[in-house]
């Protein structure tokens, strides 16, 4: 019961705090691509792969008092910060989850900006295409982001590193 909620709680316990809903979306997607068994279903949306299920689950976890959400006013937008609560820790203890160790990956993901993770997640979304086609596709679906060649190279390197460890 509620195994998928528990997996997310474990993620928040590992990450300690996550800043930004978009960043959270991309982190879970990239972890899925690294074969960490999160089961939220993703579709392609305006900022790349996005999971409605994840949005709803996180909202539920907040409503249940397992996650603490802080809304920060950044003048032209709001930013959300998530941390696990004591009730959340207690909830998590009731589950014996069989998850691989992915702490290092989470650390790497946390260091990156949401713009960069959006690029990486989008490239992962098209990872069935040959590399040149994949890059072309990223530019086509995200013309307004104007990703530079440097950023694309960095993303390719990051994808290799994060899937290896």
């Amino acid at each position: 019961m509620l195994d998928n909620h528990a997996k997310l709680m474990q993620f928040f316990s590992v990450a300690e705090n996550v800043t930004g809903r978009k960043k959270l979306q991309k982190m879970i997607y990239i972890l899925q691509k690294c074969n960490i068994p999160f089961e939220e279903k993703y579709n392609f949306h305006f900022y790349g792969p996005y999971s409605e299920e994840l949005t709803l689950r996180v909202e539920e976890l907040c409503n249940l008092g397992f996650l603490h959400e802080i809304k920060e006013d950044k003048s032209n937008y709001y930013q959300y910060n998530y941390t696990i609560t004591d009730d959340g820790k207690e909830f998590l203890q009731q589950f014996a989850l069989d998850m691989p160790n992915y702490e290092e990956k989470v650390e790497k993901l946390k260091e990156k900006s949401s713009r960069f993770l959006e690029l990486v997640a989008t490239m992962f979304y098209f990872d069935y295409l040959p590399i040149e086609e994949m890059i072309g596709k990223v530019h086509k679906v995200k013309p307004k982001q104007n990703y530079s060649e440097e950023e694309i190279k960095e993303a390719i390197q990051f994808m290799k590193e994060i899937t290896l460890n």
Partner: protein
Amino acid sequence: MAYKDQQLSEEKVFKDPVHRYVHVRDRVIWDLIATPEFQRLRRIKQLGTTNLTFHGAEHSRFNHSLGVYEIVRRIINNFENQSHWNKEERLLCLCAALLHDLGHGPFSHSFEKVFKLDHEYFTQQIIIGDTNIHKILERVSPGFSKEVADVIAKTYEDKLVVSLISSQIDADRMDYLQRDAYYTGVSYGHFDMERILRVMRPIEDQVVIKSTGMHAVEDYIMSRYQMYWQVYFHPVTRSAEVILSKILHRAKELYESKEFTFKLKPIHFISFFEGKVKLDEYLKLDESIVYFYFQAWQEEQDEILRDLCERFMNRRLFKYVEFNPNLQMKQWMELYQLFQNAGIDPEYYLVVDSSSDLPYDFYRPGEEGERLPIHLVMPDNSLKELSRHSDIVEAISGKKRTDHKLYFPKDRLDALENEELKNKIMEILYGQGEVRDVR
């Protein structure tokens, strides 16, 4: 004449209870409808187990797919001479609308959950794989099938085209709300679609609504809200879904145990159990096959599989109580243990089911709001986000609602001979609220 431009010698129509008629003139559309992959949708119900609650809900994904095609056809006719509309995209839009649900299997929700499948993946595979659909699309032009697949996957570069099939006010939703309302017989779900179609305007990367049509859109948003809670998340339907999922889990578990031999070898399910479903196997499985196995599994040796199938086939569903995972986690764990003591396997007979919906989402720049909001085009041609202008929509914008229910077989509990154990279980369940009878 090029295949993509060929027209039927006379227009064909499908009589339709929602749109009155579905009109087909393009040869390509007529050929796509005739393929086995599209005809298969006749054997998959649009609403899965909802017919156990609303007996009229027997309509299929075939009906709905034709309906979405018809709505897009009407929208495009209205766009014909408007700026921003590229007439070259017409056939692409019609094909994507017709084929958007092609990869749905029987009882998609449960199958996807249990066997970790994704109907959107299969939609893509049917369109770009070695199928009749693919051959027809490639006759239009080389690479056309990929474009159709991209529109459905929302990765097509022209977002205006994507938004016709997939946005907060798209042809898909406009059809299923009206169609599901019609077949379930509920009075929710109705709105003035003709009016909405008349006030839709194409702009650079989305469809916007002329501000004078705002009230029709409000009605549509409220219809959606009500349909979710009154029909789609109906607790009785969810009870049937719970049982269906548990049947699939049990059959998979028995298959994996290697100690159990099915009287009837589940050949159509083996690739699902093994997690290696190929496209041709996926296409073979429709609802009639699933019902056949559920019928047969009532004769199997395994008591749990037999009982669950018998419940599903004869609508002997689980009862439910409201459940709050935050406040009642300890009671749930206690119940889990008590069910085990009573010899009722809680993995199959004590199930929490959760439903959530976000009726309308507005745009929050930079940070989130990955759904494109509905924009109104004002008399001065400026755009205004719907919830900023409509008090009704504002009231439900960005508000998610979640509902948790605990399902269990009350008849099994009633039949317990150990009175003390029975009373203890009932006390915990009844203590959480009244046990609801699903009949």
